[in-house]
């Protein structure tokens, strides 16, 4: 078991993969530490949102994920 990170849109390009497993529990600082370099910088930007198990977080710095949770990293949508 781990926390699954799902990278959407251009974040998947920066991550080099659509998904990544990291050990839980995971808070906001743990997430930044797990994603160094340009990906971490991008995620820090205010236009990137987080969803945990399909629910978008109103405040992404309040992240608190456990093993088995899925965190989606969401850049601005393109629309359909």
């Amino acid at each position, binding site marked *: 078991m781990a926390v699954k990170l799902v990278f*959407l849109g*251009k974040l*998947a390009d920066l991550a080099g993969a659509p998904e990544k497993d990291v050990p839980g529990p995971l808070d906001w600082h743990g997430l930044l530490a797990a994603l160094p370099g340009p990906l971490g910088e991008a995620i820090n930007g205010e236009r990137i949102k987080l*969803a945990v198990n*399909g629910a*978008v977080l109103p405040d992404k710095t309040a992240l608190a994920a456990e093993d088995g949770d899925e965190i989606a990293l*969401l850049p601005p949508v*393109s*629309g*359909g």
Partner: protein
Amino acid sequence: MKDVRILHGELAPGPAMTAFSAAHPESGGIVSFLGKVRPDGDVEALELKHYAPLTLKGMEELADEALTRWPLDGILLHHRTGAMKPGDPIVLVAAAARHRRDAFEAADFAMDHLKSDAWFWKREKRADGWHWIEPRAQDHSDLARWT
């Protein structure tokens, strides 16, 4: 009646409209919008990504919102995902209602939201490679009509 789908294969608008119409024999009018990948400039291909836990849920909520705002008999939202070529159907919206004005407004509303407010990420392949796309300013001003 709500018919909300994310399609991983081809979107065939004719058969979908025939089925939707048959499902609503009581409706005086059905308005549909079919969106196709536009052959703009040097776009060779388009790829749409979605995230099922958000994308499908968001489309279901959009359909519910339309059903709340207008007296509809039914609404259909079908959206392609994956790789597409210019000219391919990418989205089909249909609204069935007793009176045509309700059907027109509901389909228009649903499209404005799908175009700029739905959980899709789009990239286009041009001669110099892939580019991620964000909504046009026009899409945001279209959306603001409904608030």
